[in-house]
């Protein structure tokens, strides 16, 4: 998995900047890599059905939220199924 080391004294913004500097990835990809390093996002975007709980969708009041990240939402409800897999 992605690991970020010797970053103890850095803010998250500084960590993202360091990831970008080290790898050349975009800012959004650096955010994703930081989240992956913390186990807050899956290492792989290819998820088999057993891993679907990571992306379990809960629908509330017309807004569906991907459970691994409270900041991720979609505008309309989507079907709640436990065997959803994500690939991206």
């Amino acid at each position, binding site marked *: *998995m*992605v*690991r*970020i*080391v*010797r*970053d103890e004294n*850095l803010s998250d913004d500084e*960590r993202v900047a*360091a*990831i970008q*500097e*080290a*790898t*050349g*990835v*975009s*800012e*959004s*990809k650096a*955010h*994703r*890599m930081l*989240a992956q390093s913390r186990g*807050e*996002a899956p*290492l*792989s*975007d*290819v998820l*088999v*059905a057993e891993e*679907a709980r990571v*992306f379990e969708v809960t629908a509330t009041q017309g807004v569906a939220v*991907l459970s*691994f*990240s409270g*900041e*991720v*939402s*979609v*505008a*309309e409800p*989507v*079907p709640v*199924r436990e*065997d*959803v*897999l*994500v*690939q*991206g």
Partner: protein
Amino acid sequence: MQAIGAVFDLNIQDAGLEAGVMTTLGAIDSVHAVPTGLPRIPIHEIRGRRLVGGYRALGDGTAVDVLISRDADDPGFTLVHELGHYLDHHALGSVSGAFASASGELADLFDAIDASDAVQELRDLERRAPVAFPAAAGVLVILDRDDFSYLLEPEELFARSYAQYIAVRSADAALLEDLLAGQGIVYPEQWKDRDFEAVAAAFDQLLEGLGWSGS
């Protein structure tokens, strides 16, 4: 045959993102059409950067939706990548709901992909992993073997090469800009232009053989 936009229902609130999605679908249309009868699914807008795009399906192969984040740096390129997964899953190969890229049915395309310098370099990095990439102040970003193995999975190789193919053949300015950014990553997530020529030619032959070309 039909335009790829006919396959998707847009569920996007952000006007800028919606315009970008329409432009991106138009770029794909300029390169190829898709068969009729494909499952119609929504493209949902999401927010955040922990997931900038996704293609969701059920374990039985049923397509659910495509996700695209309004906060992605490269929403167009990401969208083409995700649509590549959808096409790989439902439009290519002999079994709808199975990834053709993983079935061996796209042999000529994958012969070109596997022979590319980018894939050879990724395989070398996979063998040498963990690999540390240094930044200022001593910070190290370390990628382990599974990070490179993921990039070498056939579904991901297909989606990344499809996105690059659409960018190159459509000559869409935004997609080409996104591609250029992807080519700047220190490990070869995307192919250099010359390295991609054989892959693009294999895509040309694949789409011509399918009768998808010339939309």
